[in-house]
């Protein structure tokens, strides 16, 4: 028998193609040595070419999953992915308050990955749900992790360089998260990917060479999940993000083609193929 590992919870949608969403979350959490729990918010019909259908889970079932996990199993950190609707966001905001997940140092760390845009940059959420992310989730977030499309949708800043990244970080931080990570991966054309972490005063930069691959499906989910896993293991926020950045760089480097469209980042290098 083994010792009970740290636990982390993802509150997210499923991707039938297995590249992103809670499937990417579970694999990243496993690869980071953490037991992953799930509260499913939506079931997407999806492959490498895109999303062709979405079935929403009732908000009370989403909340019941969070409650069942936290009250019995206990978690060291939680994250959100696709929350799909205003009603689901409201249910999540209420239940995290109830079970002690949130922003403050006295709460279980809450990572909000504000999944709001498709890989093509198209909005995935109605405006009332975007508003709920700003007003109900961000004030509860220990960390918010938008990509540049989500930054634009959330605070109206178009990031093109270090100065606009800093401007975006300040606008996002003003919405309430304790830390903000502005992810530069969608800034095409730059030879480096720079992610900027900001706590309202200090900044940390995580940079590395841009890896030339179209197969980056699930990268954002995996980064947020690996951060969440490191928080569950007790890391400080800057250390947790640094650990997740190491994980995601390797996962992008080892990504693979799948189907006719965009393939996934890979967790497979982190497990021994079992023989």
């Amino acid at each position, binding site marked *: *028998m*083994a*010792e*009970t*590992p740290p*636990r982390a919870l993802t509150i997210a949608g*499923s*991707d*039938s*193609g*297995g590249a992103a969403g809670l*499937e990417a979350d*579970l*694999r990243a959490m*496993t*690869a980071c*040595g953490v*037991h992953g*729990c*799930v*509260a*499913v918010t939506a*079931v997407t*019909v*999806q*492959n*490498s*070419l895109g999303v*062709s*259908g979405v*079935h929403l*889970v*009732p908000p009370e*079932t989403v909340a019941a*999953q969070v409650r*069942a*996990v936290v009250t*019995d*199993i206990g978690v060291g950190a939680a994250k959100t992915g696709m929350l799909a609707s205003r009603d689901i966001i409201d249910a999540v905001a209420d239940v995290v308050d109830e079970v002690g997940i949130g922003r403050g140092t006295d709460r279980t760390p809450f990572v909000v990955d504000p999944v709001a845009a498709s890989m093509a940059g198209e909005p995935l959420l109605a405006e009332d749900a975007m508003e709920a992310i700003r007003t109900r989730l961000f004030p509860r977030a220990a960390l918010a992790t938008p990509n540049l499309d989500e930054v634009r949708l959330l605070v109206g800043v178009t990031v093109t360089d270090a100065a606009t990244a800093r401007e975006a970080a300040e606008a996002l931080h003003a919405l309430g998260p304790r830390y903000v990570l502005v992810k530069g991966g969608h800034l095409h054309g730059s030879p480096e990917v720079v992610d900027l972490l900001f706590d309202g005063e200090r900044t940390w930069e995580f940079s590395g060479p841009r890896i030339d691959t179209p197969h980056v499906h699930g990268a954002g989910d995996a980064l947020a999940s690996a951060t969440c896993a490191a928080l569950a293991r007790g890391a400080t926020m800057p250390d947790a993000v640094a*650990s997740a950045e*190491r*994980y995601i760089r*390797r996962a992008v480097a080892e990504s*693979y*083609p*799948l*189907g*006719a*469209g965009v*393939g*996934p980042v890979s*967790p*497979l*290098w*982190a*497990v*021994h*193929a*079992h*023989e």
Partner: protein
Amino acid sequence: MDARTPPVALAIAGTDSGGGAGITADVRAFAACGVHGAVAIAAVTVQNSVGVSGFHAVPPDVVADQIRTVAGDMGVDAAKTGMLASTEIIEAVVAAADEVGLGTRVPFVVDPVAASMHGHPLLAEDALDAVRTELIPRATLVTPNLDEVRLLVGVEVTDDDTAREAARALLDLGAGAALVKGGHLAGSADVVDLLVTADGTERAYSSPRRDTPHSHGGGDSLASATTAGLARGLALPDAVALGKAYVTRAVEHAYPLGAGHGPVSSLWSVADWEHGD
């Protein structure tokens, strides 16, 4: 096909919010066995180590659409079923399975999940008939535990002879092969799983019984790892051997979680990538 692309396995099953069984166990077993895992979610359960306190069934057409959209784009090298919840979902799965060749061109493992390890029903009573008449006839391999054997074919397995009798009864329902899992036969020193195929091949897989209450997700993991082996092109007896080796290791590394039954573990398969490689 690009050399970097791994084989693809598909799990058609329910989620377990506690992360021990169902789709969560499937996704981890697929990754640990080196295949890309795709999913068709049939149900969302509200569950922890103590039991199942609620579930939401996904509409049957959404279950079928997930199967079609995965198979039509990325292709599926092997598929498995877990919790399918209702007759309507089973019928939708069977229709989509026939369309995309599960059970004919593509190996199809049917794990006839009927109840949680705590005894909570995960399948409507009238759905057992659909498992017998619709699902099992399409199965390359059916993998019931002893409780499911009793429900499906009415055989009480107590030894090798009754295990063989149960396997033959499952083959009579139309399965290509049956793996009768002895894990629920408390009291025996070893866990013996018996594989019998329609062409008469027999093979027993034995592992020492572990004295642990933490075996949540063991059945799912065995079926998923076997499915991963089939997706990688292994012959059925070898795929089952891979599944058995994986679950034996996963049970050895099982851990306590919550107030009830903890899960079998896939964490032993993870490299220590943060320190070193």
